[in-house]
C-alpha cells in the first residue's frame, strides 16, 4: 500500500509519541489551568493621583533619568479596563513609553455605580477629561499635554479637543477611533431606531449592564469564543499560548457597565444621528466639530478590526483641521493593534518616532 502524497511514514512513530506527550501535558496543564489564576496584569508601578466616582487618574513612575517635556494623558475606552495597555512586562505599551522616556498618566474608568446613571457625555468631555488635564499640568508642571485616546476614549478625546481647540492639548493620538457610525453596520442594526427603544432600556436598567456590552461585542463574531476555547485545549500544553490566552480573555470579559444617560447620548447623537461625522455634535450646549482640531494628530487603525471597521475610522484624518496629520494602518484586529505582537514590532516604535520630536 502506498502512502498518500505528503505523508512521511517514517515520521509517524515520532508524531504519535509527540501527540501522546501533548495529551498527557494537556491533562496536567488542564488541571493547573483551573487551579491557578492567570498572570498578574497592569503591574507597572503607578500612583493614584485622583479618584472621583467612575474616574481614576494614575501616574506611572518614570523609569528614565531624563524624560520628554510634554506629558502624556491616555484616555481609556469607557467600556474596558486600562490594563490592556499594561499587560505584562515585555508586552506593555505603558512600559514601552516609560522606557522611551515619556511621562505617562492614564485616565482609567471604574464601573459607574447605580447612583452615577445620570452621568452624561458632557460629564466625560467637559468635566472628567479637563479635570485630569488640570491635574496632569499641576503634577508635571507643564502646560502642554499629549492626549492618547483608545477606541471610544479616542471619541471622547476628539470631542474634548474640538471644544478646547485653543489648548492645552499639544498632540493627539487616536487608536481605532470611529467617527462615521453609519459604517458600524452590525451595531447600527442592533440599535435600529425602529426597534431599539433606548429610553425604555435606560429607564428600566439605569446603567447598561456589562453583560449586555460584552454580548454585543461577542455577537459580532459569534463563533469565535467557542473556536478560541478549542484552540486553548489544543495548545494547553504550551505555557506561552496559555498565558497570552488568559491575559486577553480576562481583559475581553472584564467589560464595564455604561452610565445610562451617557449610553442614551451615544445612541441618539452618534449611532442614530451620526453627529460627530456630520459636524453637528454638541456637548453640554457647546459645538464639537473636529474640523476645529488643529494640533498634530496620528490615527492608528487596524486592517481587520471587526469592532471599529476601517470605513468607520477612515474619515477622521480627512475631517480634522490639522495640517500635521497621519494615519497608520497595521495588520491585525481591534485589540492586537495596541497589545499584540505586531503592536510591539510596528505600532509602538512608529508612535515613538512620531511623538518624540513633538514632545520637546
Amino acid at each position, binding site marked *: 500500500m502506498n502512502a498518500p502524497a505528503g505523508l512521511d511514514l517514517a515520521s509517524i512513530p515520532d508524531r504519535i509519541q509527540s501527540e501522546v506527550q501533548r495529551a498527557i501535558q494537556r491533562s496536567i496543564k488542564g488541571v493547573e489551568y483551573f487551579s491557578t489564576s492567570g498572570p498578574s496584569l497592569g503591574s507597572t508601578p503607578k500612583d493614584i493621583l485622583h479618584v472621583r466616582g467612575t474616574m481614576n487618574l494614575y501616574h506611572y513612575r518614570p523609569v528614565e533619568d531624563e524624560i520628554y517635556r510634554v506629558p502624556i494623558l491616555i484616555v481609556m475606552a469607557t467600556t474596558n479596563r486600562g490594563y490592556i495597555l499594561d499587560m505584562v512586562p515585555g508586552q506593555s505599551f505603558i512600559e514601552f513609553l516609560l522606557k522611551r*522616556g515619556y511621562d505617562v498618566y492614564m485616565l482609567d474608568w471604574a464601573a459607574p455605580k447605580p447612583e452615577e446613571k445620570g452621568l452624561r457625555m458632557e460629564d466625560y468631555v467637559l468635566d472628567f477629561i479637563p479635570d485630569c488635564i488640570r491635574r496632569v499640568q499641576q503634577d508635571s508642571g507643564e502646560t502642554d499635554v499629549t492626549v492618547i485616546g483608545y477606541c471610544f476614549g479616542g471619541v471622547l478625546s476628539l470631542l474634548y479637543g474640538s471644544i478646547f481647540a485653543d489648548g492645552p492639548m499639544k498632540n493627539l493620538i487616536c487608536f481605532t477611533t470611529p467617527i462615521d457610525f453609519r459604517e458600524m453596520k452590525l451595531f447600527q442594526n442592533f440599535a435600529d431606531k425602529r426597534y431599539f427603544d433606548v429610553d425604555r432600556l435606560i429607564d428600566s436598567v439605569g446603567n447598561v449592564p456589562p453583560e449586555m456590552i460584552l454580548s454585543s461585542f461577542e455577537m459580532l463574531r459569534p463563533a469565535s469564543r467557542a473556536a478560541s476555547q478549542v484552540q486553548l485545549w489544543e495548545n494547553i500544553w504550551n505555557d506561552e499560548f496559555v498565558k497570552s490566552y488568559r491575559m486577553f480573555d480576562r481583559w475581553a470579559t472584564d467589560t464595564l457597565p455604561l452610565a445610562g444617560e451617557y449610553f442614551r447620548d451615544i445612541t441618539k447623537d452618534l449611532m442614530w444621528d451620526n453627529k460627530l461625522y456630520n459636524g453637528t455634535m454638541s456637548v453640554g450646549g457647546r459645538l464639537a466639530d473636529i474640523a476645529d482640531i488643529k494640533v498634530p494628530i496620528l490615527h492608528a487603525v487596524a486592517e481587520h478590526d471587526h469592532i471599529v471597521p476601517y470605513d468607520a475610522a477612515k474619515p477622521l484624518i480627512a475631517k480634522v483641521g490639522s495640517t500635521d496629520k497621519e494615519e497608520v494602518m497595521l495588520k491585525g484586529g481591534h485589540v492586537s493593534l495596541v497589545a499584540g505582537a505586531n503592536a510591539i514590532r510596528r505600532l509602538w516604535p512608529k508612535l515613538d518616532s512620531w511623538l518624540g520630536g513633538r514632545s520637546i
Partner: protein
Amino acid sequence: MADNSNDPLALWQKMIGEMEKGFNTFANQAMASPQFSKVMNQAGGVTAGAQKQLGELMEKYLVSMNLPSRAQMIGMAERLQSIEGQLNEIKVLLLQMNAISGMTQDSVAAAPKPPRTRRPPPSPPGEQK
C-alpha cells in the same frame, strides 16, 4: 516549507478555522437583517421590563424583612467612596510634601522628578521622519 496536506492535526485546525470564519460570516449576514434587530430588541425589551419589576419586588421584600434598603446601601457606598477619595487626596498631598521636603524614603514616588530635557535620538542619515 513542510507539506501539511495530510497531517490530521493541521487539517483539524484548518477545519476549525474555516468553520469559525464560515459561521461568523453566515451569522453576520443574518444579524444584518431588520428582522433580526426587531426580534432581538423585542426580547431585550421584555428582559429589561422583567428585570425592573423584579428589582421593585425585591426592594419591597427587603423593606418588609427590616433589611437595609437599596437607597440606604447606596448612601453607605457613597460615604465610603467619599472617605476613599479623601484618603487618596491625603496620600497624594503627603507624597508631594515628602518630595518637597527632600526626605529620603524607599518610595520611588517621593524621589525627585527627572528633568524634562529629553530629546529624540537623531535619525540615521538619509532617513526621513
